[in-house]
């Protein structure tokens, strides 16, 4: 599991990679909440996330809720089929804004 973050003061892009499971969820939670703390618009790059379980999903939900509390926004992009399947199973595919790629996410924001 790896993660990195970049962007502007208002827009933070968080790149997640690898298998996001119970072992790595605490680190992912910290990164996501840190991005929410620093930005108004958080874009989570899921392209290299090969696996996610309920603990990883919990991190995404918590970050989304924290973003909404501060009137910020959080969206996912480039979600691979396994992660999308998990989001769909939990009916979270309609809760999160999910975009095919970064360009689409930026365009959707207007």
């Amino acid at each position: 599991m790896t993660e990195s973050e970049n962007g502007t003061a208002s827009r933070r892009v968080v790149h997640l990679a690898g298998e996001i499971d119970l072992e790595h969820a605490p680190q992912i939670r910290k990164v996501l909440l840190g991005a929410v703390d620093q930005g108004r618009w958080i874009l989570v790059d899921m392209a290299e996330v090969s696996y996610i379980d309920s603990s990883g999903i919990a991190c995404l939900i918590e970050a989304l809720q924290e973003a909404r509390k501060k009137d910020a926004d959080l969206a996912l992009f480039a979600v691979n089929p396994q992660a999308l399947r998990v989001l769909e199973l939990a009916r979270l595919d309609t809760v999160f804004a999910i975009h095919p790629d970064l360009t689409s996410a930026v365009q959707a924001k207007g």
Partner: protein
Amino acid sequence: MSEAAPLPAGDLELTRVLLEVRFCARVDRIKLIRRVVEASALMCDLASEHARDVVLAVDEACQNIIVHGYKSQGGGEIVLTLASLDDGLLVELRDQAPRIDPARIQHRALHDVKPGKLGCYFMSAIMDRVEYLPDPGGGNLLRMYKRKDGSS
């Protein structure tokens, strides 16, 4: 959940057993378990997307045992048995954690979006059968079954 024939009780025929793995109830072991579950599911002719689903269900079951059963203390034992039945894959997970009351196992309502409490939902949504039993040897026995036709 399917109303198919009862799952085999008691010891499984050895020829049905794909593998049995005894491992320490620690989060850093789950990744390894995912590998053997996926390989076993594919060996049972489950479609790859269903094999990946079963991996998630077993991952969630292991998490529950580690976190709720053994309280993340890291010293407990889990025994995973994977068996090929005529029409699907049988997964058994045994632990020596305090007995659980199946009636108290609940997942959150899906419309109540908040972190956590999705693991048992994933297990029941993915698998055709999920049974929580007391293990005759003490502790708990979780049995889950996935049909090859992926009807779930």
